[in-house]
């Protein structure tokens, strides 16, 4: 109830001035309008706006080059709006809100929307590009050397300017040493005296033609790879810049039937827009597919595929246990240590604090790997030190205990730090008052310290929970989900939803981004619900204790 009282009304009035002056709220605004423009303020404004303009122009060139007109329009409008907003002196609230909003859009909303839109496609390996890309790939992959054909030494030449003139191939027949010139119309022999041939057969000069060196030729790479000189058996193509071969494209796309035909085997693959691939009558698919919209298929797969829905519940429960165990365990341990060191009777607290936060100072990435090796059955430090023979990662419960133990070690220094900070913010008078009232230390902790701590730390606990819920590294760098039941290699005892789905989406045949996006939307929904519920409860708590 206290919030509305200290709400907007009191904020608008400049403290100290409002009650004294009887003027309307406008007075403060006009005062602001007449505030002098300081040199530093002006400079900051100019530099920041200059940066905006600079970035906008830098970003505009690639957009123009790629002919992304919508993107360019968004860029121009955003930049114009920013200038309008900050050059003028009005719209003060917007000046504060816009930067945060822009970053929110760029780093939160756009990625989420992109993920959501990907979830409705089959985007993944074999389905990355457009249909045109797939057709080009199929055709160029089907060019085969004509069996028994000759390899010719090649020089690339032109009749005109090296950078723009029409290209020709000058080739030498290795058997007869005759030089021919080839272009899109075909091959014509060149007069024997007109060309200078180097040993090895490469033409170095020819009358009427400029022979391109590698540098000049490579600048026209696309023209060279596109140049096909028709011959009786197929066509001459370049293999690099110094060799030509006679090849034949075996497969060709026919727009009429929207299919790919193989001229050798006579087989036909027809485009299937549902799956984004060329499929033959016998079900055979060409590997090169394209990206299509698959509607809700990815979502229904999550719900109907037995491999996914079967172990889902068990994984979800363990996932909650892991997140709660990691968060709760580190919190309790960190808080207990913080409480112990908070006592005025402890000496050398600084030294203790320094030692205690050491695990926090080490890179968790490396530490996870070290811990993994320490749990090794035969060579690990833990078994060797205690003389045990526990197969830690080989049994479900020991593996789960092990990963939570590692999390505890990695995470408690953080909780210790924040709890120390929060404890110091609780006035000692409160606990002293309880002891005057005759409360035991436990009662005073239970009734005063803990609730006040929780008010301060709840948001951190919730974010820690959300982080641990999706703590990919903690599992992937230690057990990798092991142990796996003998009859199901896709779901292990320590798998979190995120490691499990990572394996489903990327561990099988190939990367399936569409499917992965669909699953991440499910996980997003779970985490969002949990966070929303906990924040609501925290707010109620705050209202009680505030």
């Amino acid at each position, binding site marked *: 109830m206290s919030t509305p009282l200290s709400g907007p009304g009191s904020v608008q009035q400049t403290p100290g001035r409002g009650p004294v002056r009887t003027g309307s709220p406008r007075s403060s605004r006009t005062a602001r309008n007449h505030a*002098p423009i300081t040199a530093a303020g*002006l400079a900051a404004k*100019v530099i920041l*706006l*200059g940066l905006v*303009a*600079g*970035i*906008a*122009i*830098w970003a505009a*060139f690639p957009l123009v080059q790629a002919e992304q007109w919508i993107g360019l329009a968004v860029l121009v409008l955003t930049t114009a709006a920013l200038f309008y907003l900050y*050059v003028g*002196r009005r719209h003060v609230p917007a000046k504060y809100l816009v930067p945060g909003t822009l970053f929110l859009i760029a780093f939160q909303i756009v990625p989420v929307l992109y993920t959501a839109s990907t979830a409705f496609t089959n985007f993944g*390996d*074999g389905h*990355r*590009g457009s249909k045109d890309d797939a057709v080009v790939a199929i055709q*160029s*992959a089907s060019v*085969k*050397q004509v069996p028994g054909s000759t390899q010719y030494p090649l020089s690339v030449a032109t009749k005109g300017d090296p950078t723009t003139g029409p290209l020709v191939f000058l080739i030498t027949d290795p058997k007869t040493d005759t030089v021919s010139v080839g272009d899109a119309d075909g091959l014509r022999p060149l007069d024997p005296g007109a060309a200078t041939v180097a040993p090895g057969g490469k033409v170095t000069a020819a009358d009427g033609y400029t022979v391109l060196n*590698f*540098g*000049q*030729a*490579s*600048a*026209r*790479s*696309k023209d060279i*790879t596109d140049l096909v000189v028709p011959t009786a058996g197929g066509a001459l*193509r370049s*293999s*690099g*810049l110094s*060799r030509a*071969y006679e090849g034949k494209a075996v497969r060709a796309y026919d727009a009429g039937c929207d299919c790919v035909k193989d001229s050798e085997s006579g087989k036909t693959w027809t485009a299937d827009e549902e799956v984004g691939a060329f499929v033959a009558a016998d079900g055979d698919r060409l*590997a*090169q*597919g394209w990206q299509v919209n698959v509607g809700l298929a990815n979502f229904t797969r999550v719900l109907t595929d037995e491999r996914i829905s079967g172990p889902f519940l068990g994984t979800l429960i363990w996932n909650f246990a892991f997140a709660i165990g990691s968060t709760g365990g580190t919190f309790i341990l960190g808080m207990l240590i913080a409480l112990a060191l908070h006592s005025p009777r402890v000496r050398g607290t600084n030294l203790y604090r320094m030692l205690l936060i050491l695990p926090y100072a080490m890179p968790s990435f490396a530490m996870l790997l070290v811990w993994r090796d320490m749990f090794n*059955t*035969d060579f690990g430090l833990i078994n060797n030190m205690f003389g045990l023979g526990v*197969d830690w*990662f*080989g049994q479900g419960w020991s593996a789960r205990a092990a990963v939570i133990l590692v999390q505890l070690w990695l995470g408690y220094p953080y909780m210790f730090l924040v709890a120390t900070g929060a404890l110091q913010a609780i006035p000692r008078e409160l606990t002293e008052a309880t002891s005057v009232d005759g409360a035991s230390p436990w009662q005073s902790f239970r009734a005063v310290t803990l609730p006040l701590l929780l008010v301060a730390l709840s948001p951190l606990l919730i974010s820690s929970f959300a982080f641990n819920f999706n703590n990919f590294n903690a599992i992937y760098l230690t*057990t990798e989900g*092991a*142990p*796996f*039941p*003998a*009859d*199901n*290699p896709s779901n292990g005892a320590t798998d979190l939803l995120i490691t499990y789905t990572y394996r489903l989406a990327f*561990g*099988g*045949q*190939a*990367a399936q981004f569409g499917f992965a996006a669909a699953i991440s939307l499910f996980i997003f929904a779970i985490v969002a619900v949990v966070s929303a519920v906990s924040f609501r409860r925290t707010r109620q708590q705050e209202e009680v204790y505030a």
Partner: protein
Amino acid sequence: MRIRTTGVVAVLGLALAASGCGGDNKSSDEPAASASPKAAAGGKLVIWADDKRTAALKPFTEKFGQENGVTVEVQAVPNEDLQNNFVTVSSQGGGPDVVIGAHDWIGNLVQNGAIDPVQLADEQKAAFNETAIKAVTFNGQVYGVPYAQENLALIRNTDLAPEAPKTIEDLVATGKQLKAQKKVTETLCLQVGQKGDAYHIYPLYASAGGYLFGTTANGDYDPKDLGVGKPESIAAFKKIAALGEKGEGVLKRSIADTNSTATFTGKKCAFLVSGPWATADVKKAGIKYDISAVPGFAGGKPAAPFVGVQSFYVAAKGKNKALAQEFVANYVTKPELAVALYQADPRPPALTAALDQVKGSDPDLAKFVEAGKNGQVLPAIPAMAAIWDPFGKAEAAVIGGADPASTVTAAGKTIAGSIK
């Protein structure tokens, strides 16, 4: 009011000036961009390789550049990200002109339209080891130019085990004897780990009669004929289980990629199953060693290791494909480069001439090649990606004592389910 207007004007003017600066930056970039066709009168070739190879490549690419008046830029990309990054930039229409990587990427690169075939003349192909050319051939097309090949072999500590074991049974007997004499603590260092390791167990699996994919009439692997889950594979895993933790205790999940070589160099085991990449560590540890083929089960098939090939690819979306083709098809096929790459990373060169050059100074190479004689080309078909994880886990489970029949059948089902 006056202050305000001047303020606005000043801000506008300066902002425009600043944006003018931005524009200047750009326009100083732009001549570079428009000059690039002209400087590309110098032409530019961009190569992606992993860190080790980048250093070895540089002198050669510089020479290639100088000889031909082009610039060659070699960019180091960590090996584990290389394929993925390449496919991603390629689908955006950009990326390098040439990529260097393992041959089993080919299936995935082709299905994403990321690489083009390389047209080699017959005499060029003949210069290579036959297996290497077979490895880079996919759907009847050659997609890369190989430069090195690698396969597993048995590395043994000759102080502990002077004789190369003929069979796995021999090896186990020797290992047990050494263990009884307290000379070693492990019989065999063959990495398994909690997730298993399909690559390292494959020789034993093959020796026991298992197979991954059948072959079609033209010798390609056939994803429709999956060997995992078939009776042969169950029989093979039974033999592996007999060596496992509940059996002989020769294969253990506690031996993993992280400690397998270290255990061998620490003289805790007499036999190590590994590839050419392990010899550097073994030499450093000062261990007397010899290399022989991985032994198979007595009376079984040969223990065929997978043969992998490192190769050069021409990117389909490269800006400078003609030059890239020239570099890959006509320059990389020369032995000098293969020798230099061998010196950067000692794996047997795929060019016969290059192998002949270096094998005199490095007897290990010939031994590795000999050990891979019975080897099978690592399948490059995209379906192979579906094998690794389930197969490895089935291996780990069976070695840990799970029932081979149900485990392998389940693995077969999982694999079949993720092959399209």
